[in-house]
């Protein structure tokens, strides 16, 4: 196969574009797709300070590499999840990348900062391991970005991630989640702006970019991911994509172009400060504080309740600890 740009020998085929690229041209094509995403969704300005959520995997390190290459002020944040050797290797890959690029990597350890790690959360909480991990990441990244004075959080979500999430939300008609599935969520009520500059690029493309750029990312999969719902949606979409290249992109980009306006307002809810941490939420306490209290066996707002009767306390607790049936048990 020949490179579409220079007619050299191709190393990566992008079937949905009916195109292939050589090792010199592909990083350029990849970077242009990121620039397009940043421009179309007004993700950030050259003067903005960006906190990049890095996991040590291909997507987040590829994103950080591109942003640094484009001259943005991009600081990495690694969240230690406490998943044994996997977390150690993920941290080491992130730190090695930061050193190689002369970039700053900040590290937050979930256990040190919030009192639990992900394996413990999977065993003790009522949410699945992946659900509580995602919740913890969103909360910790936002808190770190707000405390650090960053303008925007950038995550490495790619086209496959976003298409799988949209499929899952559509299958359940979670219209509030669908309404919020934008590559750029504006800052709101203490929530730092969040952007996904890789949403136009597939997992194959982010992996190829990372490889061609010599990024030593963690190839191994999280040991707790078995049975993950999003993986099943990805597999389903890949089955369709194998015979109809471009379906995933049409599904996601069609939604962003034509579907998203139809769902505008479906996520309009009144927010108030969480009674525990102050982050805005729809209930008395935010989902993170509820989950954390359950994992740690604590009672939220216990100090407020001195002198109240048992029935009132029971009502509060029923608000705090959601039953396992709602979120499903963690795989252990």
């Amino acid at each position, binding site marked *: 196969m020949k490179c579409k740009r220079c007619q050299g020998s191709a190393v990566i085929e992008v079937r949905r574009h009916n195109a292939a690229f050589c090792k010199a041209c592909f990083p350029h094509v990849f970077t242009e797709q990121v620039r397009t995403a940043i421009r179309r969704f007004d993700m950030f300005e050259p003067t903005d300070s960006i906190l990049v959520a890095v996991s040590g995997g291909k997507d987040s390190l590829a994103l950080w590499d591109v942003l640094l290459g484009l001259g943005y002020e991009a600081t990495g944040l690694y969240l230690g999840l406490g998943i044994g050797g996997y977390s150690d290797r993920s941290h080491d890959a992130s730190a090695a990348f930061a050193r190689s690029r002369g970039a700053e990597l900040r590290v937050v350890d979930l256990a040190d900062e919030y009192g639990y790690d992900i394996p413990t959360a999977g065993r003790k909480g009522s949410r699945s391991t992946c659900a509580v991990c995602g919740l913890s990441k969103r909360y910790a990244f936002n808190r770190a970005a707000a405390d650090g004075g960053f303008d925007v959080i950038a995550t490495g979500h790619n086209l496959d991630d976003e298409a799988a999430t949209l499929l899952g939300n559509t299958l359940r008609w979670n219209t509030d989640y669908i309404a919020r599935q934008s590559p750029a969520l504006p800052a709101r009520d203490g929530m730092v702006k969040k952007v996904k500059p890789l949403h136009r690029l597939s*997992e*194959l493309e982010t992996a190829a970019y990372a490889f061609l750029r010599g990024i030593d990312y963690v190839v*191994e*999969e999280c040991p707790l991911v078995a049975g993950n719902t*999003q993986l099943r949606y990805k597999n389903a979409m890949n089955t369709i994509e194998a015979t109809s290249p471009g379906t995933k992109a049409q599904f996601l980009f069609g939604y962003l172009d034509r579907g998203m306006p139809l769902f505008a307002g479906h996520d309009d809810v009144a927010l108030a400060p969480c009674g525990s941490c102050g982050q805005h939420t729809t209930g008395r306490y935010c989902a993170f504080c509820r989950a954390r209290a359950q994992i740690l066996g604590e009672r939220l707002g216990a100090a407020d309740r001195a002198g109240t009767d048992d029935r009132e306390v029971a009502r509060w607790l029923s608000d705090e600890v959601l039953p396992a049936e709602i979120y499903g048990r963690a795989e252990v």
Partner: protein
Amino acid sequence: MKVRLRNPDREVELHGGRPIREVLAELDVDPDTVLVIRGGELVTRHENVGQDDELEIRPVISGGTV
């Protein structure tokens, strides 16, 4: 021909002298879900592999939550 597979890491011996897409088909691997690496270089599924080649087939799908 040696083929290194990942997650979990393992190695299998297969016949070379054919296009990579045939190797992937034998392994029941979707070409859009893996990088194929030969001698430290990426190769497309249309390349031929020789009997003495060593391939790494590296999955690209990650299943972390959002």
